[in-house]
């Protein structure tokens, strides 16, 4: 749904669902997931439906991701760092 951004010389290399992705500096982890083309970024722990970022400003909590192995992080509020590992969150978080 979004056009691939032109590759910036200072792009940040992160890992989304195990695949390397280069994203513009200043991108949020949720933005990285969108750039990586994930169809959805989590499933609802209540209904099991797929969900994806909705507001990008910290309001809706649809962007919960597992970032560097820690679940339930608000992906739109976390800025990418080189080497960051971003994974979908399936249902209720892990312990």
């Amino acid at each position: 749904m979004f056009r691939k951004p032109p590759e910036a010389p200072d792009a940040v290399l992160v890992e989304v669902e195990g695949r390397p992705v280069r994203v513009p500096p200043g991108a949020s982890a949720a933005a990285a997931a969108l750039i990586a083309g994930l169809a959805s970024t989590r499933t609802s722990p209540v209904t099991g439906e797929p969900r994806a970022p909705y507001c990008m400003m910290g309001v809706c909590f649809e962007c919960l991701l597992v970032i560097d192995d820690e679940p339930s992080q608000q992906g739109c509020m976390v800025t990418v760092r080189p080497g960051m590992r971003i994974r979908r969150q399936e249902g209720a978080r892990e312990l």
Partner: protein
Amino acid sequence: MIREADAIVVGGGLHGCSAALQLALRGLRVVVLERRHVGRHASGINAGGVRTLGRDLAEVPLSVLGMAYWHRLSELVGDDGGFTPCGQVKVAETHDELAGLEKRALAVRSLGMEHERVIDGDELRRRVPAIASHCVGAMVVDGDGAADPYRATSAFAARARSAGAQILEGEGVVGLERQPGGWLVVGERGRYRAPVVVNAAGAWAGRMASLAGDEFPLKTRASMMLVTERMPPFVEPVVGSVGRALSFKQSSAGTVIIGGGQQGRADLDREQAWVNVANLARSARAAAALFPVIRQARIVRSWCGIEAETPDRIPIIDHSPRAPGIVHVFGFSGHGFQLGPVCGVAVADLVTRGSTTLPIAPFSARRFAAAAKAA
């Protein structure tokens, strides 16, 4: 117009609704006056712990009898109120604490009751695998458990209604006038008259008592709770602690509900309570100490509920010492949810027969007479 009834209950918490149900079942015309809505205060928002374990020895006999009602809640009110007999566990972190539990179990046994049992560290870990490794044992009660406080209170209200009680929500009591043969109860919206008034006004019961001419040395508790996001199931029973103010349980939705009595700030006039972060942090610290796995769990919300506390932290369940026709049931001091169903029976006995065979002698209203006079 004055509405006439056989009994008026002030307060639509669990205690008010339970008393109303029992009175209605005995054929009385009952009116419950609730200033906000049923379950608005302590009864709707408490930790839901249904616990005989570790209670004040004076409360143990009534509490143990009360357990039977929880196990048969569906028969009584047509809904199980979310009750599950998942057990309660009180954890000892040191051998001294464990020895204290052994002593306590003996004391309870000497009253002729066998429900509390002490288990060692291995059995504790079998029952609660996520418990911190340093814990050395615990006391358990298997038939104890937890319920959904709002659902249980609503179920009592619904059943009381179907038995004929009228529950008027949004009606606050502002005055009591003694009249020949009973009381005129003045509400914000209407007036009511009955020979008997039950004071089940929770945190505001002291004010209610004052209207009837009784003074009790009460304090207000503002206990805080916090709840996490949904987690995979990892703990079955409700877990408390000897050395820390903690109650810890996982709901059926997967959220973890943490309480234990850390105090916020109450405002009786505004009918609100405010969380105090420094104290809330102590609850979180206690939880994290016993369950290291939840350090990363996200707290979604905290809240605070208000309740009356007596000097000896056990309730008042009795006729008024000086105002005939007034029956008090309040001052549960942080643990009255479990007692709700059985207290309804005790109160109905007091109203209809003047006395009860249930073990409520320790909860006499007269025990504070001296203190009240001095105050």
